[in-house]
């Protein structure tokens, strides 16, 4: 983490946001839609990175935070008939509650035990979704009805099913989370998180309540992931238990490691990379997972710190 060049860092991030904005008008329909989805999932990855990259806590249970947002927002619309903003808030609220409870319990452990405990709580969460199938739709999941996915702003109403509205909403969420992440990372609090990652015992002896700081990080991470989940439910109209399965806990870890842990833009890069590798290779062969696997291994051999992480290490030391 470098102290210098805040202007450069902010310029870069605003540049990326501008680029994504401009791309909205240039991309063909398919990639336009795909990128909207990638931005929402990149938010999930950013939430994961908050905890894994900056605090060094490897969780295998983040699907539960994503699903908390997904179901919080989805069920609020489907079962309670709430409006889109209220449902989004409900998703965030669920994210806060779940991450607070899980944080209080799981943070009693460290290292691999933390990894396994989070995985098991996520498994419980997943099974609970199946158990309460009457309300959650179980493994089939539920559709968020199209007429309900409208954002009313005073006189105007925006249909979230409209590709442009959806892209811009996704971009808005992505931008907010990206800038918030950047601000957190560069703040005093961000410095404490990194210190905990580097040496927790030492940080305690410098007067920091590391437990509370870690708990706050779990909750921030949980909120960001829940925001991604809530946005997914409202923008794409489906809630289902597969998003709570362990696969969706491994995916953000993979995206973050690919893009570069503890880099603010790494999650986006990693998610983009993974999506495009799958999308392109699956067009050429039905055995595309083979190619994905080989790509992952090659990438990690030549970019052991992830794409952006390795770039930062070798060339651009100022990257946040």
């Amino acid at each position, binding site marked *: 983490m470098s102290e210098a060049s805040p202007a450069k860092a902010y310029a870069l991030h605003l540049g990326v946001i501008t680029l994504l904005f401009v791309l909205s008008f240039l991309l063909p329909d398919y990639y336009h839609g795909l990128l909207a989805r990638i931005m929402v999932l990149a938010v999930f990855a950013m939430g994961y990175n908050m905890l894994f990259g900056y605090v060094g806590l490897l969780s295998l249970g983040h699907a539960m935070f994503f699903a908390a947002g997904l179901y919080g927002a989805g069920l609020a619309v489907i079962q309670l008939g709430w409006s889109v903003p209220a449902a989004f808030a409900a998703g965030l609220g669920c994210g806060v509650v779940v991450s607070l409870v899980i944080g209080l*319990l*799981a943070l*009693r*452990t*460290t*290292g*691999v*035990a933390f*990894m*396994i*405990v989070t*995985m*098991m*709580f996520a*498994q*419980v969460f997943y*099974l*609970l979704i*199946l*158990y309460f199938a009457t309300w959650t739709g179980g493994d089939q999941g539920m559709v968020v009805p199209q007429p309900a996915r409208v954002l009313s702003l005073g006189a105007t109403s925006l249909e979230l099913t409209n590709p442009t509205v959806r892209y811009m909403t996704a971009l808005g969420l992505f931008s907010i989370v990206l800038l918030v992440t950047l601000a957190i990372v560069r703040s005093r609090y961000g410095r404490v998180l990194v210190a905990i990652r580097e040496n927790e015992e030492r940080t305690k002896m410098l007067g920091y309540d590391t437990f509370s700081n870690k708990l706050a990080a779990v909750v921030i991470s949980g909120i960001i992931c829940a925001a991604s989940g809530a946005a997914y439910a409202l923008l794409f109209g489906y809630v289902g238990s597969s998003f709570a399965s*362990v696969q969706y806990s*491994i995916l953000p*870890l*993979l995206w973050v*490691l*690919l893009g570069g*842990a503890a880099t603010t833009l790494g999650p986006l890069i990693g998610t983009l990379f993974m999506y495009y590798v799958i999308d392109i290779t699956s067009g050429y062969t039905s*055995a*595309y*997972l*083979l190619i*994905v*696997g*080989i*790509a*992952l*291994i090659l*990438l*990690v*051999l030549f970019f*052991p710190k992830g794409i952006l992480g390795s770039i930062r290490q070798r060339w651009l030391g100022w990257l946040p």
Partner: protein
Amino acid sequence: MHFGPHLLLAALEGLVTSAVLALTALGLSLVFGVMRVVNVAHGEFFMLGAVLAWAITTAIGGHPALGFLAALVIAPLIVGAIALVAERLVLRRLNYNPEATIVATIGMLYIIQQLALTFYGPEARPVEPPFNYRILLPWFGYSGYKLSVIAASALLLTATWLVLTRTRIGLVMRATQYDSETAQAFGIPVGRVYGGVFALGAMLAAIAAVLIVPISQAHYLMGQDPLLLSFIVVIIGGLGSLRGTVVAAVLIGLSDGIISMFFSPTLAKIIATLLVAMVLVFRPQGLFGTTPR
């Protein structure tokens, strides 16, 4: 069914689960303990063992026992060789960096799974047990083969324990686990130990799979559950503790079997998972670990 027989049945079922789980988890524990590598592809080595068992028994034909015994020897060897190659080509070059190895083993998972799908296919295929003997109890019938799985697993675990505690190989492995740098300084070929441990870990998973495949079929997606359960067993049992791994496997297998007597199945799974998670929360070093290192 009355409570007693029901409990007996649940316990037997739990023990079969435990027997297979203990072997699989021991493999993961060795890799985890000695190399500090989180091997996400461990479940795929398990799957590979089962798929190869099917291939070998089908190719050999004749009496089921013949093919099964061949599979029990050949399948682990092939899987071990594959693991060794993977270790040489990938993990070693990554310097066993914990994060990079996670990505790399996820890559291996995809590759192995896809190869199994392409060459073996998406169907679940059965392997005939070496013998079919139904033990008739007064209250229910039970598979004789299942009981033999428990025995075989106990035998293999004892053998592994002897190797680890009584032989030079075991000593070298323990020394490397304790402190790889010092071990290196004392002339232990740490690189080769790592290769051997990774292969051995995969072989244990493959053996477990060959044992279970006459009970539950070979399928290309069968690796995920053993992986997750093994992780849990390894952590609950305490890193690198053979005794802990076995006890944790028995505990998890039995609790899974017995809790299912009292609750609806999904609820039973929820309670069992939550219980084990709570054990870990309030005893993070595992049941037999001392202090986390």
